[in-house]
Structure formats: C-alpha cells, structure tokens
C-alpha cells in the first residue's frame, strides 16, 4: 500500500485557473495522477487542460466523484477553500499555499480534523506515491519515477527533492513522500505522518527530515524510544547553524522561547536510537545500514 493516497485517488484542484494551479495541474496529470476537475468561483463551465472547471467544490465532487482536493488559491482565500472542501465531503485536502495567517490555519485544521478529514500543509510541496503514480503537489516529476519501499516525511520541499534524488541514486525507491509543510501549525505533523508510514506494511524504513523550530522531532524521538514505532527511522535536521529568534524562510522555522533548536533535535533523535545524518548526502548510507540490520 501507499500512505493517504492510492490507485483510486481522484482529485480536484482548487484554484485551477490561476498560474500556479494551472501549471501544476498539468504536471500532476503528466505524472499520472487522476486529476478530474477544478474549482474557481466564477469560472464554472470553463475547461483547463481539458478538465471541467466548477464554481463550487460541491458541484465538482458531485460531477466527478473526487475524494481529494489540492488547494492552490491565494493565502487570503485559502481558509475559505479548505472549509468548502471539508463540507463538500472530500477526505483529504492538500494545501500548497504559503503565507496563510496562522490563526486561520489553526481554525481550519481543527475544523477538518474534527470531521475526520486529513489535511496536508499548508505551505507544503504535497504528497507523492510512485508505486501508484499519484502526485498531489508540486514536486518535480523526474525525481519520483522509481517506486520502492522507503517512506519520507519532511518539513522542507527542496531538501526532500535533494534527499529523494540521493536515495534513488543509491538504488532506493520511494513508496510515499509527504512534505508536511513549513508553517508552525500544519494539518498533519511530522509525528503523525511518520506514524501513518509506520503502519504501512510496504514501507521498510522512514526518512524523517526535520528542521529548526517547534518540538515535533523531540516528540517523535520520545515515541520511538517508547517503542511506538517498530520500523527503522533515519533522520536529518536542517538549521543547526540557525540563530535564535530568527525566522529561517519557513514561518515555522524559528527558535522561540528557547524551544526548537536544531542541535537539541539531533541530540534527542540520537539518544532515542535513531541515526541522524550530518549531511543530506549521508542519508542513503544510513538507510541502507538500517534496512540490512
């Protein structure tokens, strides 16, 4: 199996007539994803890449049977888009949009979770599963052509691509990669995404890519030390040279009130028995070693 998506995943794109939405809808289709339509309020009846555009998510779901939505709408309208998708009955919402106000995210994420809807993001590259040819997001297609048995969970986009590329070069294919997003509040955090991967029998090892800010890595280390995860994990944490109280590109990448330092995360993971790579290039060796054990 793959995580959160499968061979029957049918997705719509909210904001499909926008520059980003249209560009990435095309790329997702090329990858093999079943994108079945799009939504842009006021543009119902139009077509983009041969796909029907609807005014509301409700209409789109009714007409296409979509169970998933990928959100590309601008930050000001993103919360509205997520509430609409949840109420229309989709089961997974992937929010690519960056710069959504944190109090908006805090609310729509709680709203969705209370209704059993999974949210990935915001401010994330999305989710990709090479074995079933599903990509919901903006990852480069060429890196995710080799299916395999490695799971990836990451707080960073480009760093995920970099490490995926290194894994593939080392002969390791990927089952599912989830970019959980760079914001302080995300719908599915590093810990939750890792636990989902841990439950999938087709995943042998999980690469966890953390960064400065928050305490997800520490919480994961604690769970691992307690035996809640039986699979091998390999970690990497970016931002060991980041100064305190400075935001490092991602809204969530900040040491605040003394919490979130990257070196502390590396230490916590290692003390829990999880090998942590010092450079992204070391990750494949550590994965190979962990699998052979």
């Amino acid at each position, binding site marked *: 199996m793959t995580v959160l998506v499968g061979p029957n995943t049918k997705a719509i794109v909210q904001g499909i007539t926008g520059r980003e939405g249209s560009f990435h809808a095309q790329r997702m289709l090329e990858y093999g994803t079943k994108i079945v339509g799009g939504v842009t309020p006021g543009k119902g009846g139009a077509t983009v890449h041969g796909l029907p555009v609807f005014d509301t998510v409700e209409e789109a779901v009714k007409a296409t049977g979509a169970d998933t939505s990928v959100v590309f709408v601008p930050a000001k309208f993103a919360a509205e888009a997520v509430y609409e998708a949840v109420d229309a009955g989709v089961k997974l919402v992937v929010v690519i949009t960056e710069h959504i*106000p944190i109090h908006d995210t805090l609310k729509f994420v709680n709203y969705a979770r209370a209704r059993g809807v999974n949210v990935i993001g915001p401010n994330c590259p999305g989710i990709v599963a090479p074995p079933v040819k599903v990509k919901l997001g903006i990852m480069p297609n060429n890196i995710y052509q080799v299916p395999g048995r490695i799971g990836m969970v990451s707080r960073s986009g*480009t760093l995920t691509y970099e490490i995926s590329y290194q894994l593939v070069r080392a002969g390791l294919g990927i089952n599912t990669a989830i970019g959980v997003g760079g914001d302080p509040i995300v719908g599915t955090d590093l810990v939750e995404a890792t636990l989902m991967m841990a439950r999938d029998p087709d995943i042998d090892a999980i690469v966890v890519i953390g960064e400065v800010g928050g305490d997800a890595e520490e919480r994961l280390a604690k769970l691992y030390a307690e035996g809640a995860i039986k699979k091998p994990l390999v970690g990497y944490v970016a931002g060991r040279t980041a100064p305190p109280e400075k935001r490092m590109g991602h809204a969530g990448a900040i040491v605040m009130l003394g919490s979130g330092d990257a070196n502390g995360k590396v230490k916590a993971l290692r003390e829990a028995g999880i090998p942590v790579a010092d450079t992204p290039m070391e990750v494949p060796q550590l994965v190979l070693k962990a699998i052979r054990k």
Partner: protein
Amino acid sequence: MYEYEAKEILAKYGVKIPRGRLALTPEEVRKIAEEIGKPVVLKAQVTVAGRGKAGGIKTAKTPQEAEELARRMFGMTIKGLVVKKLYVTEYQEVEREMYLSLIIDRATRRYLILASPVGGVDIEEIARKEPEKIKRVYVDPFEGLRDFHIRSVVSWLGIKAGTPQWDQASSVVKAMYRAMTELEAELVESNPLAVTKSGEVVPLDARIIVDDNSLYKHPDLEKAFEEDPRDVTEFERYAQRIGFNYVELDGDVGIIGNGAGLTMSTMDLVYHFGGRPANFLDIGGGASRDVVKEALKVLLKHPRVKSIFINIFGGITRADEVAAGIEAALAEVGSSGKKIVVRIKGTNEELGKQMLAKSGIPLFESAEEAAQKAVEMAKL
C-alpha cells in the same frame, strides 16, 4: 512590536500599566522624568529579547541622571539593532516577579498559556532550573478563553482569590488573550508580571509578536510596520525589500540556496566543513536570471563575505537561467575579490555548466565538495 506598543494595547484592553512615555531625544527623556517626578526606568525599544543583559535597561534617580544615561543609550546597538527610541517609565518597587505568556501550541493545535509564579528571567531558564514551576493551560480556539482557565492561571501565580490582585491578574490574562486573538499574534508575553510593593499586579514588561501573514487584516499595524520596520538589521531590510528571505549570520561564507530547508542545509554543510556561514539567503523555486542576479549582488556587496556558495536543487529551476544571473551580477558589480562556487541540479544543466565554465567559475557535482571548496576559499 515594541514594548511601549504592546503595553499600550494591554492598557487599551483594561490593564493598568506603569506610567510612561516614549522619547526620541535625551532632552525628551529629561522632560518625561521631570513630569513623572520620581525615579524612572529607561528602556531601549528594540524587538529582541535580552535587552537588560545588553545594557538596554537603566534606572535613573533624577531627571539629570536620566538625560545623561539617555545620551549613552541612544545609538547603541543591541544584537545588531540600533536604539532610536527610549521608553521612560516610573520606577516601581517590586515585591515579586511572575511570568505569563500565550503562544500557539503546535502539538495540540490550541492556544497555550504558560504561567509561572517566578519570573523576571527567560522562560528557558525557568524551564531548565525549575520546570515544575511552569503551568500549561490549553485553550480550544473555537471554545475560547473560559473563566476556569483564568482561575487556574491566576491561582497558579500564587494570588489569593477575593483580593484586588486577583482581579488585576485576571484582567491581565483576559487582555493578553484578547491581544493574541484580535491582533492574530504568535506570542504575547509579560515578563516580569510583577506584584509591586504597593500591592498591585502590573506588567513591567510586555512583548507581542504578530503574524506578518495576517497584517493585511490589520491596516493600522501594517502602516506602523511600514513606517518603522523592526526586527531586522539594515542588511536584512535591504535584502527583504528586493524580495528574499534573508537572515544575517556572523561568518564569511556567503550562502545562496533555493527553498528554506535546502538553504539551511547549505549553511550547515559549510559549518560542518569548518567554515562560518555569513547569511541565509533563499531565492525560492524556479528562479529567473534576475532573481539570481539580485541575490548574488547582495552578497557581492557584503563587506564580510569572502567566498560565496550557490547551491541550487530544482526540478523546474533552469541551470542556464542561474548561469545567466551569475554572469549578469558579476558584469554589474564585479567580484570584489570574492570567490564563487556553484553546485546546481536542474533543467538545462549542461548548457548552464558550459556558460559558467567559460566564466571560470568552479562547478561541483557534489554539494559536499562545493562546500569544502567555499570554506577553503574563504580562508585564503
């Protein structure tokens, strides 16, 4: 947000704050001290924690002394930020210092109130030395702040029910929560929140960090931040104006990357191989030649930077665009003796590499080798 702004917001929401005013010159400081008519505290208005230790908070017994101190405090630098404003407040004798803050908790996705009956030092220090003193009260974002939350916090602070202090402390909790939700803040903190010798609960310090992404909903704040940008050094402001995520560090190896994680990882690589990164500069995905040009110009003009490591990994970033950007930057401002090292993966890789090879710029397949070269060049 500055301390005086944070306090004025709490005052607007019904909290009694120490008497005080903002001064822009030593003469104004003297005048305010005379008006207050008793010892005053001069507080440098910079938006970083740890002002006190850096000499940014001083007490003066007389208006004369206040003016003299102010002459030395205006223009001083605290963690890279120049002091241009002093907040002059009445000096209050303190019976006891407490800690109170509100944040958004990532793990539970709720508001989180942190309270401690001991304060005045960083919460980090309290957490390290006396973690049992910190109480955590979680507030559901839909349900909001309830009376039992307030009772739980105020009682933990060591204040007795039925006293005037109880009501004063309760109003502080309410005001801080209101600031958190109405201004869409990421942090609202009062440290210390004090019980004074005269028996009143008063926020002696206050800090509010608002979410930049929600500023469009708060035009007053947006305007204030535009007129007087804070939290950033001159160099950061310059880079941000051009449109980059930029953070100043203290080393001599300039860093350019795409994506926050990869750029941080590039900094870490330089450090791993014995160098010191000078900055964090993230140009984002799919960068055009103009973006690359402007980014490189920032570092070429940077006085401390000796070598520059450009690390680009993109599916959609075109290597020939990056190469063209590098050439354009060098043509415009020259290399100023700085050495550039490039590692790039992306579309049109071969074409880009040919262009850079012609300009004599070292190219690497491996980011590790490139980092080592950049470190070596900075040491020359």
